[in-house]
């Protein structure tokens, strides 16, 4: 089936335009308002973070956001509710959930996939389930038309790339640097080579993230990738200045991304 992700990346491709992917944490501050405002601020795809107590691939910004969200009572059901509420007024911007295995496993993979589909979710990035372990999850997601988006990293050599891109769908998320979210970003030229490699192996669009914070960085990455992901910087803006500050940042980042020449 064609889901919103495929449609959106086809549209971007038709315009020759790099996409902007905005990450935010569900339940951190007035997250429903931010979520609803992201498409008009220029987000082509939304990554909606599912908070987890032990986010071991995340840096301080997203760790903090997760703990604040949990403190405020956010649950997996609550994440679905925010996505569903968003869908009442938007049927085109893809939502990709991003988080860790345990809450998903606890809900049950099939149960999770069914509820995600019902909430209008389009994809899932599960940080700590590598391809070797994801068959059960993938089967459940496939049955409900939800893309399982895999991560490729600077340590993914040609040998491993085949394993990573097999059975993936939607897009491939290229992690530009070895490290946690919010750390320094990779060198743009090296990222360009890696993107080409991943795109050739997967036949899918490649979004690049980790460590992209400024419009300049976003533009430099956008010149070499199908999409740019920004997370920690948006989470920080939301924490420090609320929805308005986060929306302003997304506007400037998305404008820089969309203005990049590929």
């Amino acid at each position, binding site marked *: 089936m064609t889901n919103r992700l495929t449609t959106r990346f086809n549209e971007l491709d038709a315009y020759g335009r790099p996409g902007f992917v905005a990450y935010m944490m569900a339940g951190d501050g007035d997250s429903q308002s931010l979520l609803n405002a992201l498409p008009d601020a220029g987000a082509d795809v939304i990554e909606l973070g599912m908070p987890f107590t032990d986010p071991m691939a995340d840096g301080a910004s997203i760790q903090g956001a997760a703990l604040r969200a949990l403190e405020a009572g956010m649950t*997996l059901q609550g994440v679905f509710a925010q996505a569903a509420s968003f869908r009442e007024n938007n049927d085109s911007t893809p939502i990709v959930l991003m988080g860790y295995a*345990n809450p998903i*496993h606890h809900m049950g993979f099939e149960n999770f996939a069914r509820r995600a589909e019902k909430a209008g979710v389009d994809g899932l990035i599960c940080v700590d389930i590598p391809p070797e372990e994801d068959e059960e999850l993938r089967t459940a997601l496939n049955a409900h038309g939800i893309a399982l988006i895999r991560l490729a990293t600077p*340590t993914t050599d040609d040998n491993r790339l085949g394993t990573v891109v097999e059975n993936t769908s939607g897009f491939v998320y290229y992690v530009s640097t*070895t490290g946690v979210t919010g750390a320094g970003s990779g060198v743009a030229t090296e990222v360009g080579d890696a993107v080409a490699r991943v795109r050739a192996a997967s036949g899918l669009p490649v979004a690049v993230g980790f460590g992209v914070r400024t419009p300049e960085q976003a533009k430099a990455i956008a010149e070499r990738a199908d999409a740019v992901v920004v997370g920690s910087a948006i989470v920080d803006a939301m924490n420090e200045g609320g929805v308005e500050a986060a929306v302003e940042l997304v506007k400037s980042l998305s404008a820089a991304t969309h203005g990049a020449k590929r």
Partner: protein
Amino acid sequence: MSDTASVDTRPNALSAWPDARGRFGDYGGRFVAETLMPNIIELEAAYEDAKRDVEFQREMEEFLRDYVGKPSPIYFAERLTEEFGGAKIWFKRDELNHTGSHKINNCLGQVLLAKRMGKTRIIAETGAGQHGVATATVAARFGLPCTVFMGATDVERQAPNVFRMKLLGAEVVPVSSGTGTLKDAMNEALRDWVTNVHDTFYVIGTVAGPHPYPAMVRDFQSIIGREARAQIMDRLGRLPDAAVACIGGGSNAMGLFHPFIDDEDVRLIGVEAAGHGIETGEHAASLKGGKPGILHGNKTYLLQDDDGQIIDAHSISAGLDYPGIGPEHAFLHDAKRAEYVSATDTEALEMFQLCTKLEGIIPALEPAHALARVRDLAKELGPEGVILMNMCGRGDKDVPQVAEMLGVSL
């Protein structure tokens, strides 16, 4: 026998796990971020290679003998046997190892492996500080820089060990995220590893984490059970009725249990930390009070809430204060090959004092938990019975904390 992909590759014997995927039954596996997968796979190959290398084995044996002080003796705890009034109690004295606990058995193996793999930097997580001290010790011996992540709460309650690590040249990083205990230290170590993936070797201290760690740490710790089994056969001409050990992540217990798994008449008993009591919710008993889930690279029993969020463990003992348990214990639990019970903070404190007074051995608070259930078991088995308990660590590190709990100012 079919030659299709559905060939059943499950091991026959309970002692022969994990399978090729690093699974112990349904538990274990490799649940890590993609950045770490190539490292994990490289580690697995390097470990398999080292296992078959006579030179590696020879080097291990030499350092275990001359540096660690192996074999550690077994000891008949006569006065505790009298006190409990039942089965004969024997201690495997791994608290006599260099650095004061069983932890160094594993650190030595992993650091030698790191050297062999050409890694130039060592990191570790620690709870009570025993694994941190052991890692820092071996890293000092081999001249490798070492960073130890330790929960901020633990840094406070285990100050002597923190200073020991610093003397050994290690950098100690206090981790204040979460509750500032062992699980948070492990999160932070994983964050460091994912950042410094090319030159760094992560020495995990327990039988948990992504494959091959649970099997590798168990193999390195199995020297406990191998020695003890041979020693007790030599001294008594028979196997014990039960082998008992405390469990946080479960490395000393797995090391003791593994060589006895195929001895069906030997009961294997793991003692988890019940903290203030399992019914209070403030405990660290993952098998008694947890459910299967995925954390820190493996599938196993975890303390978690209705939404799959990890619940903070509680124990008087920093070394048991972990919301998970090694996957092989989860497997042995479900297979009913091992029994898992628990002991509270209060019981541990009581046994700490009793063992010190009667045997002149100050046990760490961790094995003091095991002793509480040895007491019941001794009565249950009666005078003909033989219990082998692993005295996995000495209690010097706990003296300041115990003094405080008893209202004594030092």
